[in-house]
């Protein structure tokens, strides 16, 4: 009866969930130098800790003011397209309960500028880089991957899941056959570890996951945003100029976790990057227990620039008391 003598169930770790952090004495300082204790390996690529930045929520010029990008497990960069894209008109964001919806629509300066402006700087700063690849068509994706094949990017992440572009984007990511064909084609073009980023807006996530893996994906990342919207009750009109957008933030956390869990059950061996609503080391840890090799922090970084580093530090400490999990991750394996 020893272990169960006290009623009340789960005892909290020393760490706090950031969402209700009431503890000023947390002690964790994302700005102090830190030696990472627990690394991970994703599709053969070592990350110094299991926490990366999620694509579209990291901009080098903006973020380097606040933290050292070399402190992250990996830096996931904004989707790049073959030519510059101007994205969708404003407004591009609205608030939702414990979350947000965005319709940025992959505004980016194009792969050529990325190769000159952003990637070399990131690499010279010591970052492990996951380059997010966007396209309106198979040819678009192929063009970008071709340009990136000899670049210093550490991994490529094929974004077949953006709900905010009318062609390509999510439509490829919901059709296992089209997805398989695309990934197969891209596979032939590069030796870089290739991550396929999946959309949650599907009936059968396992089918698209499997199609990606069979097409040659080295890893999967999930989830991208869920389709959603807000309406302005003073006008009766959608707040976003694009009407609907993609929902992310803490609100999607349990949904994202469920997707990772189901994919891990179906595909025991594929490396997985878990994404969705992570704002604390504890939430990151739930993803690792669900079978992810690593995680990425998205919306939380919008609300506090140092959130990705904070999550990484919190997780690093939580893993101290979980050597079985930490050891598996360090070997490129996952829980269960």
């Amino acid at each position, binding site marked *: 009866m020893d272990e169960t003598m006290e009623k009340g169930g789960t005892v909290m770790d020393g760490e706090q969930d950031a969402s209700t952090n009431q503890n000023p004495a947390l002690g964790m300082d994302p700005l102090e130098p830190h030696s990472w204790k627990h690394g991970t390996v994703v599709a053969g690529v070592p990350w110094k800790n299991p926490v990366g930045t999620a694509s579209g929520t990291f*901009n080098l010029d*903006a973020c380097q003011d606040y933290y050292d990008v070399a402190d992250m497990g990996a830096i996931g960069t904004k989707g790049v397209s073959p030519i510059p894209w101007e994205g969708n008109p404003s407004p591009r964001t609205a608030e939702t309960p414990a979350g947000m919806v965005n319709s940025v629509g992959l505004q980016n300066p194009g792969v050529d500028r990325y190769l000159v402006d952003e990637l070399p700087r990131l690499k010279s700063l010591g970052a492990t880089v996951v380059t997010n690849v966007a396209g309106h068509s198979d040819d678009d994706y192929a063009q970008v991957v071709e340009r990136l094949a000899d670049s210093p990017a550490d991994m490529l992440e094929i974004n077949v899941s953006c709900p905010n572009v009318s062609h390509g984007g999510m439509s490829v990511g919901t059709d296992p056959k089209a997805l398989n064909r695309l990934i197969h084609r891209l596979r032939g073009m590069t030796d870089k570890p290739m991550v396929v980023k999946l959309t949650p807006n599907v009936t059968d996530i396992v089918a698209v996951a499997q199609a990606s893996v069979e097409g040659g994906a080295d890893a999967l990342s999930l989830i991208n945003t869920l389709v959603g919207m807000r309406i302005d009750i003073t006008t009766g009109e959608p707040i976003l100029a694009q009407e609907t957008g993609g929902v992310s933030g803490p609100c999607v956390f349990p949904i994202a976790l469920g997707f990772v869990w189901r994919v891990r059950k179906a595909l025991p061996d594929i490396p997985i990057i878990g994404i969705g609503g992570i704002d604390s080391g504890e939430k990151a840890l739930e993803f690792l227990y669900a079978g992810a090799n690593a995680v990425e922090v998205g919306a939380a970084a919008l609300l506090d*620039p140092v959130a990705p580093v904070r999550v990484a530090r919190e997780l690093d400490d939580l893993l101290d008391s979980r050597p079985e999990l930490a050891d598996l991750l360090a070997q490129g394996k996952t829980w269960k």
Partner: protein
Amino acid sequence: MSQAVFTTTEPVIDRARRAGRRPGRRTDMITGMEALDRDVWRMTIKDPFAAQEAHPGSFVNLYPADSMTLLPRPLGISRVLDGGQIEVIFGVVGKGTREFSELRPGDSVDLLGPLGKGFDLGGAAHYILVGGGLGVPPLIRAAQAIRGMEGAQSTALLGYRNLHFADRIVERLVDDLRSISNDHGDVITLLDGVESGIDPSNTVILTCGPTPMMEAVASWAGKRSIPTQCCMESRMGCGYGTCVACVVDTVNGRLKVCKDGPVFRAQDLVWKDGGR
């Protein structure tokens, strides 16, 4: 996420500086609250970093405490005050600003900033500050800065819906203040009124307010070849340049209000799409 990790201002500022960085989101103390009008409030916040770095046109992100409302509320810095304090003036328009209006001195609020690229105050000139309603606050900070510039002159032209809530603060900072309520006219009425005293070659217009107002001001100024800077508004995801949610259309493409702005040259703005 509803409360920052750091609950005192100085340590996070110090630590960030030691690491060669800007301080992230932090929890600050409110030092003053005053109602200027029904649902318009003046709040002062102790934050030495923001006070030191604030330029005219800079803004801060304030964050509501409740997790239903996670996004930043960008508010222009209206003045820098002694003792490392900044002042913001805000209207209650939704949940976040309502929550802020219920805070009292001694309470705390989460803050990030100062943020944004402010007004370009080249030097001695006649600055005409054209503000509408809750667009006035950033112009107050501009007036504060202009007042310290040798040889510069300032005229404030303010349009209000009802009560002239900012006049009391602005009148001490400018050479000439004229304000008007909706039922008597608008800022164009005021511009027409001062036109005869203006030398277009030595005048700069700084404007902030509803987009249609700024468009009208820019058009008035354009006809008279008076250089004009507009302080724009947009719904923001991050406020510090990382998410590309807050764009306005410019002749140089879609630019971020939060980092490339919020101040843009009138001639660079493409009004049609940005006006929503």
